[in-house]
């Protein structure tokens, strides 16, 4: 199957004053159409930076030193900011860890979703509002009319994450990158969100790059798993293989960490 996204030899550094820290040290990663790829590793392993590098939405202190990110044949890392705007939110969308902090507190949910819609689609405000309501229904939010007018602080973490998903999927992206979307949610909500995510994937047809430090999630949803450690990919395998015969010591560490809590 042809690859939707091919990352080759990605190297990213942090520059702070005179010191340079390597965040991502030569990462190769593939995602094919309709695939669920889990990128696992502990905090600080470089997973988030890898994900953010794909569309170059990195913090100022981060610099991409080398590598390529071929999306449908086009190397995104070679594109300028202007051109990248056509991919962000449209072809490739993100959802993040703490939805309430990642949503703008001074604008209503509706405002932020409508903004996403009108940014990439030629719709009037009225049409966009209609579509926003449809999206909220899609993510199984009750009372979408009310939620449209609510502000992030008025909703729970779970609700905000659903709304965030609605916003991310507004323009039917081909790749959804989810950076630890359930880490800050309760276990029961986490299960709901995961189910919603997989349902939506089936319905809308996008590839999913799911970042987490919790391998039990990988067990539930992954097609393939990459394990990242200190900026490098240390293991890559299909779901069954990763759990039945893990090779790298860190993979084994991650698995045993979760077996201890009894979640796997």
């Amino acid at each position, binding site marked *: 199957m042809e690859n939707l996204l091919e990352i080759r030899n990605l190297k990213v550094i942090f520059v702070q004053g005179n010191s340079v820290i390597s965040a991502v040290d030569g990462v190769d990663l593939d995602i094919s159409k309709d695939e669920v790829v889990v990128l696992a590793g502990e905090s600080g392993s470089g997973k988030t930076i890898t994900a953010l590098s794909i569309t170059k*939405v990195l913090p100022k202190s981060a610099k991409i030193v080398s590598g390529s990110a071929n999306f449908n044949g086009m190397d995104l890392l070679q594109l300028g900011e202007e051109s990248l*705007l056509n991919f962000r939110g449209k072809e490739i969308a993100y959802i993040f860890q703490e939805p309430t902090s*990642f*949503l*703008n507190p001074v*604008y*209503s949910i509706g405002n932020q979703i409508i903004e*996403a819609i009108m940014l990439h689609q030629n719709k009037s405000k009225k049409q966009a509002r209609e579509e926003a309501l449809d999206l909220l229904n899609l993510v199984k939010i009750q009372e979408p009319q009310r939620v449209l007018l609510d*502000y992030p602080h*008025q909703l729970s973490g779970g609700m905000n994450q659903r709304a965030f998903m609605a916003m991310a999927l507004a323009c039917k992206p081909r790749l959804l990158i989810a950076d630890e979307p359930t880490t800050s949610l309760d276990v029961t909500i986490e299960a709901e969100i995961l189910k919603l995510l997989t349902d939506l994937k089936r319905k809308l047809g996008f590839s999913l790059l799911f970042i987490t430090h919790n391998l039990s999630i990988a067990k539930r949803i992954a097609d393939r798993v990459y394990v990242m450690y200190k900026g490098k990919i240390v293991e890559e395998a299909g779901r069954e293989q990763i759990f039945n015969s893990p090779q790298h010591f860190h993979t084994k560490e991650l698995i045993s960490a979760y077996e201890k809590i009894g979640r796997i």
Partner: protein
Amino acid sequence: MINYIIRRLLGIIPLLLGITIISFAIIHLAPGKPVTLQQSLNPKVSLEVRARLERLYGLDKPLHLQYINWLKRLVRLDFGRSFSDDRLVLDKILERLPVTLIINISALIFIFIVAIPIGVKSAVNPDGLFDKVMTIVVFIGFALPTFWLALLLMNLLGIKLGWLPISGIKSLDFEYFSLGQKILDLARHLVLPVFVSGLGGLAGISRYMRSSMIEALNQPYISTARAKGLPKRQVVYKHALRNAILPIVTIMGLSIPGLLGGSVIFESIFALPGIGRLFYEAVMMRDYPLIMAEVVLGAVLVMLGNLIADISYAYVDPRIRYKK
């Protein structure tokens, strides 16, 4: 939000009480009775006026009763009569209040319009050329005695170049102007006073805007905005600015005392008929009823300004306006 407003309004009452107590205490600091002091300075004060003063202050009664009587009169807006021309203090203040209000509100608007773009531009490129230059300008601005600047500008723009008038609030032949000319004339007279009044607060607020903006730009929702595909301009002005500007409203409330204090000097320099200059004249003439009224008024204006700023903040920040 209603709860917040009610609580804020209730909180004012002890403040008002405190303001009156302190004002009262200050006046009665005088080693001698205010009346005798007045008389020693102004022997023309007749026996009748002196008797009226005694009654006004109830100087024969114990201090706390004097305070309560004074308070009762205050509530009815009875500030007594001016020593200098025997007119009602209230009238004298009311006729001068508009000028001061216009100047200070214009100064606030001026600060708002100038400080915010400066702060934003500095924050978007921290340590860039603009930021470095502005840091120096602001640093010097903090050290600048603004009344000195007023004198320099009067010299340069008023006398040497003749571009702007340097005294009063209207020209001599104001009465013969058309409406448009009248407005222009007033504006020309107010340019320098508003400018130098506002300059004091400008430095501080642009600094504050800068740090508020830098903090806003570091927030997670900015990553979201960028990831959505928003161009930089919208990320900065629609998402970051709207958050960064919230505390500015309250901060600007904090510059009100400085503005009012400054009005004493600036209205004197520019010969403007406002309450600042009225206060100055009252002090020169030891016009105690007027002085007391002005002290209370000044504090009340500051308090009102802060109240408006706080309520505006509650309105503008959805997290307070719509509590869960």
